[in-house]
Structures are given as structure tokens and as C-alpha cells.
């Protein structure tokens, strides 16, 4: 019995005991690290993502195509002509348990300008009414929180960010809009987001951000990366228009909106 418990203790660092492996066909599998939307879970996902990509860059994972971090899991996509699920899992098995804090301190902090005035926030009044607060309180609470980019998707460069202060949480609109303007800053559930391009959408629109979130002409087309942190600063309509014009002329210095490598 003693020997058996010793073995169990040694193997608690094994990948398969720290996470569940879900099958996703012959070119992907998903490593499941949690079952809720929470900063601690996404920290673990980010840390594993960093480890996997560091190992890949060191040549340790031939045949790995890319990884996709999301709220609670990391999906590993591979070429079945070059490797196999079994080979990749065996290589990942060698990774030590990741330190979630190491990943967190390396993330970028963005301060993105948002105009909450006039036509920029078509749902401000209705949302404030549903939440039982003034429009001013809604704006203050939205811009005073710091958010993490949990995952990107839905549209190229579309960030799912959390956590929204609990007082601001409400379900999606019952009638989704057919057309949401690009740059719209929106909330739904425990999340906030910015629409990078025009699209249908069911979230509540509080403001507009002029900084372009996605541009295929940039070497790194998405402004935000999984794990980045985001704060919003309120700007007035005149400043918003100035930023929009600068963005259109491709004259915005994107780096000016971020602070790199901020320790938490």
C-alpha cells in the first residue's frame, strides 16, 4: 500500500491527472483545465499555452500546427501526416506543471479610449434602466474595471473579456441586431467585447472604440492576444472623431495604447 501511494504521489504531476483530454478528430485534441469562466482558470490555460509554444519553438513538437486557448481549455491542432495524438501527448507529458503567475506577469496592459457619448452607446439608457442604475454609474463601473482577454473568436480579432462587475451583468438582447457598427464596445453576461468589424450581434452597445482591433495589413493583425489585459478610458466625441480619422489614415501609434510586460 505504501508503495502504491508513493507512486500516486509521484504521478500527480502527470498531464492526464491535471487535465482531461477531449477528442476533436484526427487533427486536434482539447486539453480541458476547468469548467467555469474565471481569471484563475484562464491563467492556467495561458500558462500551458506558453509552455506548449515554448516547447514547439525549441523543436520539441514537430507536426504541431497551432494552439487555440479559450476560456477553460487549450486546443492543440496538428498534422496527422507528421505526428499523432499519441506522440504529442507523450511529448506534452514531459512538461512540468505550469506556473500561472509567470504567464500573468508577462501579459500586456492596454488602455483603450472609449466614447460613451451620443450615438456611440445606443443601448446605454436601456441597459442602465434594466440594471437599475444611472447611465453615469454604468459608464463609471464599465471603465473602472480591468479586464482580461479570455479568448478571441466569433470575428477575427473579437476579444471575449472578463470579468464584468457583477452589477453590470445581464443576458443578451432578446432581439439581436442585424448590424453592429465596427468599434462597438458591448457587454453580455459576465463579459465585455469590442466588435472589430461590422456584424450581426446580440450584445448591449455602450460605446465606441476608435483603435482598430483587426487589420490584415499588419504583421500581427490582431491588436489583442489571449491573456492581454484591457482598461477603458473615456474620451469625448471630439477626441473620438480625431482618433477615428487618425485610424483611417493609419496614423495611430498602436504601441501608445499599451504598457508591455506589466507585473500584476
Amino acid at each position, binding site marked *: 500500500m505504501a508503495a502504491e501511494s508513493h507512486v500516486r504521489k509521484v504521478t500527480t504531476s502527470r498531464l492526464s491527472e491535471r487535465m482531461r483530454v*477531449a*477528442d*476533436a*478528430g*484526427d*487533427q*486536434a*485534441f*482539447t486539453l480541458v483545465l476547468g*469548467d*467555469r*469562466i474565471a481569471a484563475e482558470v484562464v491563467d492556467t490555460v495561458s500558462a500551458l499555452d506558453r509552455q506548449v509554444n515554448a516547447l514547439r519553438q525549441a523543436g520539441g513538437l514537430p507536426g504541431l*500546427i*497551432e*494552439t*487555440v*486557448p*479559450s*476560456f*477553460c*481549455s487549450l*486546443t492543440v*491542432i496538428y498534422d*496527422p*501526416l507528421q505526428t*499523432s*495524438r*499519441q506522440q504529442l501527448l507523450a511529448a506534452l507529458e514531459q512538461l512540468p506543471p505550469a506556473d500561472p503567475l509567470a504567464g500573468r506577469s508577462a501579459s500586456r496592459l492596454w488602455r483603450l479610449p472609449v466614447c460613451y457619448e451620443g450615438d456611440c452607446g445606443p443601448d446605454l439608457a436601456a441597459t442602465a434602466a434594466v440594471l437599475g442604475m444611472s447611465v453615469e454609474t454604468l459608464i463609471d463601473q464599465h471603465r473602472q474595471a480591468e479586464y482580461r482577454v479570455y*479568448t*478571441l*473568436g*466569433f*470575428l*477575427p*480579432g*473579437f476579444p*471575449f473579456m472578463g470579468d464584468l462587475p457583477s452589477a453590470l451583468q445581464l443576458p443578451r438582447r432578446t432581439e439581436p441586431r442585424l448590424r453592429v457598427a465596427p468599434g462597438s464596445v458591448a457587454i453580455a453576461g459576465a463579459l465585455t467585447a469590442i466588435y472589430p*468589424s461590422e456584424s450581426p450581434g446580440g450584445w448591449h452597445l455602450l460605446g465606441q472604440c476608435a483603435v482598430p482591433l*483587426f*487589420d*490584415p*495589413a499588419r504583421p500581427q*493583425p*490582431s491588436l*489583442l*492576444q*489571449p491573456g492581454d489585459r484591457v482598461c477603458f478610458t473615456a474620451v469625448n466625441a471630439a477626441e473620438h472623431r480625431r482618433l477615428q480619422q487618425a485610424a483611417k489614415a493609419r496614423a495611430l501609434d498602436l504601441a501608445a495604447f499599451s504598457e508591455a510586460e506589466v507585473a500584476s
Partner: protein
Amino acid sequence: MSETLSAIEIRSAGAYASIQDGGRRGLRRVGVPWSGVLDAAWMSIANALVGNPATAPVIEHFDGGLVLKALHGRVRVAVAGQADIDITGEQGVQRVVCWRSICLTSGESLRIRALRAGRLVLVAIGGLQATETLGSASTYARAGIGKPLTAGERLSARFTEAADFLLPEPPVGGGAPIRVVAGPQAGHFVDDALATLCGVPFSVTDQADRMGVRLQGPPLEHRSDAHKDIISDATVPGSMQVPGSGQPIVLLADAQTVGGYPKIATVISADLGRLANRRAGETLRFQLVDVDAAERAARSHAEQLAQLVASIRRLPGDGSVDLQALYNSGLISGPISGFESEE
């Protein structure tokens, strides 16, 4: 080797046509899907016929009606698929077959008429010039990367003097079951949902495009209302997501990269092109396989493709040989199911 730059005009884009290649990789984490052709094997063969690299950009075309005209200079083309094709020029109208290369001379037009089967053809053009964005020439209009082709648009291609080539035994879709691997969220469904998926035919609906194919069949029941949504996670081409209606949607090359519907299964990569090529109203059957078998199928699919490409042979003489007569005479065997697995 002499090379000249030729111009091609899209006279009609038909139902839908776009430039696609092997697709872009590495950006799913920021929400950019792979895009690329829906059947990579067909792309490799069509490109081999015109002397292009295997993943060079081609025109992917749905449902017929595409017309290309060589404006000046010669243009070598090859069509992968099952379609009736005409070439119209000074000498009238000539019928040609798929799976061979042929030269359009200045002023000649190639028309993809009705498709005999499936809904997809790929048109490879020797030396086609296409702009790459983020590592690929594939169109993905949702991210502002290119646009579908429209009438009047011009393309250019480098023409190289060479022989014409033929694939003697073309692959066709075939009715073998589409293989799936269970998961990643098979547990969100009632116990017999996978048996239902693999036990009865599903039909293809008209809601099908480069993003996905919506199927219709007996509902695949979620375990409870709480199991009708998941915390969004990554999708892949082939993911079979099942919204509250219980009717599955198979995601394809242009589908969004994360999704909030549970995914009962994943169509294996070897069979996904065959599924994407099915017409509305056609039925298909699914067969459950494990990951090892799915990976073996990918390798066997690649080997079969390599054999097909190796079987491509040079056409005799000036290319004036009547291919239709050759096919009809049995000198060249008719289409076979080149992509069926032996498993």
C-alpha cells in the same frame, strides 16, 4: 523555358467563385480561420495538371456558371470536379473533360456548365498570380482579406510552354459513410445520440456554404437544457456542433474558430471534402471511428493522393486528341472512387 504574362477576365462568376489555396495557419488563436479550398486533394491534382506547386492558388467554384476568357496570351487550365465544360473560340464550341489540362488561346472562353455531381469544382490556372495576405492567397472576406470573384475582374498568369497532362482515373465522391470521431462534447448528449448519428441517414440542407453544412435528420438530443450550451471553446474544420434544435452543423474552412454549441463529433479530415461537395437534398451516413483509425485514414488518403498525382500522364502530340471519345471507348477507364478508404 519561355514565360509570358497572360491576362484572364472573369466573364461570369456563376453561383460563387473565390481564390483559395492551402489556407493560412497560426491565426486561429485570434479568430482567423484557415480558409483554403474545401477539397485539398482536388487542389493538388488540378495544380499538378497545369504544372503548379500542389498548394498554389486556384479558383474554387460552386454550382456552375463560371466563365473565364483568355484576353491576351495563352492560358493553361485544368478543372477538378464533375462538370460539363465548353471552350468557345473562333472555331466554335468544343466540349472538354475535367481532370486534364488544356490551353486557351487568346480570345477563347472556358465555361463551367452544369455540374454532373456535387457542387464544387476547382479551376487551376498555370502560373496564376494572386496576392498573399497573412501567408495565403485564400479569400476570407469577413476579415477584409480579398473578395469573391466578380464579372469583369481580371487575373494574370505566367504561361509556360509545356505539354498537356491528363489524370487517367479521376476520383469521384462516392457514397461511402463519412467517418467521425466522437467528441469533444459527446457527453452533452443522451446515450443513444451517437448511435442515432451513425445509424440513420442525414440529409444535406440548402444551408451550406464555405462556413459549414447544416444537416437534417432525427434530432440529436442534449442530455438536458443545461447541456445545450457550453463555455465556448475552439472549433476545427469538421467540428459537428449541435444547437438546441438537435440538427447538426458541420463546420468547414471559413467557420468561426470558437463556438458555444456542444460538439457531438468531428468529421475526419480525409472525409471532409467529400461532405462539403454534397448537394442539398442528398443523404449521407456517418460511421464512428477512433482517433487512431482517423489518423490512419488521413495517411491513407495522402498516399492515395500521391498515387493519383503520380499517375498523371502526358497527353499525346498536339493535344487535339478527343478525350471524350477516349473515355467512352474505355481506353481510359471511367471515374472510380479514388478516395474511398479500404477500412
